[in-house]
């Protein structure tokens, strides 16, 4: 049985540990409470979504520190904009949109920042691959090495399963550009992985 709505505020964190996947109605209740400035309810939402939000940030930035900053920024922005969430889309999609904005905002903030992120990501060996095993690790590392535009589209469409319409909307680009970037990403990935002797059949 997932966490009960009747739980006291201090029970939220504990209940989240017990409830790996709460019912939609419970999430909706947390959202409503958070919209009324209930910080413990918002913490419950954070614990429910952080792995997915952080995963997205890490895949997009390829850098642990940047991903942490972007994920934090995304949740802070989400708290500030909670009153604007009307439930037209899933809360996770709404959060992802904010997270993508946080990543893009951070990367666009200055050229120097971008250079720093790039240098950091080159130094580390694909931190986003740590959760992947076997041949998937090679694939994750190849994704990390994709050019920024192609990587962003590939992460949203190829890994997180967003449509071109959704991905292009999140990234603020045309649908055609999203399709072109995905095509480019697939081509670059194939070239890189073939060179590395990657065999997708190996996993089957």
């Amino acid at each position, binding site marked *: 049985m997932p966490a009960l709505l009747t739980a006291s505020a201090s029970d939220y964190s504990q209940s989240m540990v017990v409830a790996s996947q709460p019912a939609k109605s419970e999430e909706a209740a947390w959202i409503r409470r958070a919209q009324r400035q209930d*910080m413990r309810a*918002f*913490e419950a939402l*954070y*614990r429910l979504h*952080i*792995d*997915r939000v*952080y*995963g*997205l940030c*890490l*895949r997009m930035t390829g850098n*642990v520190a940047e*991903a*942490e900053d972007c*994920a*934090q920024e995304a*949740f*802070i922005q989400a*708290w*500030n904009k909670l009153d604007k969430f009307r439930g037209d889309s899933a809360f996770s999609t709404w959060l992802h949109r904010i997270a993508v904005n946080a990543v893009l905002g951070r990367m666009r903030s200055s050229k120097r920042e971008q250079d720093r992120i790039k240098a950091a990501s080159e130094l580390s060996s694909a931190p*986003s691959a*740590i*959760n*992947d095993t076997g*041949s*998937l690790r090679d*694939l*994750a590392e190849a*994704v990390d090495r994709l050019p920024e535009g192609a990587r962003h589209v*590939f992460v949203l469409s*190829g*890994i*997180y*399963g967003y449509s071109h319409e959704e991905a292009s909307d999140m990234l603020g680009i045309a649908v055609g550009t999203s399709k072109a970037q995905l095509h480019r990403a*697939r*081509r670059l*990935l*194939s070239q890189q*992985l*073939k060179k590395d002797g*990657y065999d*997708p*059949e190996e*996993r089957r």
Partner: protein
Amino acid sequence: MTDRNEFDDAVFAEARGLATEIAPERDLWPGIEAAISEPVQARPRFMPYLAQAAAVLLLVGGSSGLTWLVMQGDGEDIVNGAPVASLTEFDAEFASFGSGFEDARDTQVVELDFALDRLSPEARADVEENLAIIRTAIDEINTALESEPDNVLLQEMLIDTYRKELDVMREVGGLTKDVMSRQDI
């Protein structure tokens, strides 16, 4: 060609197997909680700008009006009022916020009281309104500086606002001295 497409498709299909949920290495909640628990920090930072802008606007209009009021009230005797003393010694002392600043400012405040007594009620109200706005700005800047003591912009703004306060006090003192001296002749 077909092989390449198959390979691409296979890679793309595998990408769906990449982890979408990755736990951060540390709990990010404490940082988020601290950020959203803080009272809005922007207010003390921006209020001085607003107060100062208002002060500057009123100062321009108020000073002109003040001059006009003083000249209207007692100006018949002033053929060609002497220019307000430059008092550059004050600038040097106050701008540096040296040890004598407080004493010098207190002296100006006392002199201002005498000067205000010589003004018409309208002119006096005008001066007091301007000074109140400027002093509100000074208080707000000082409040903001408590949380950001190293903020150079705030420091410069504080000096500038103190200088504006002195300008008003000196202008009032200078004008009333002119009036008095001409009347005394």
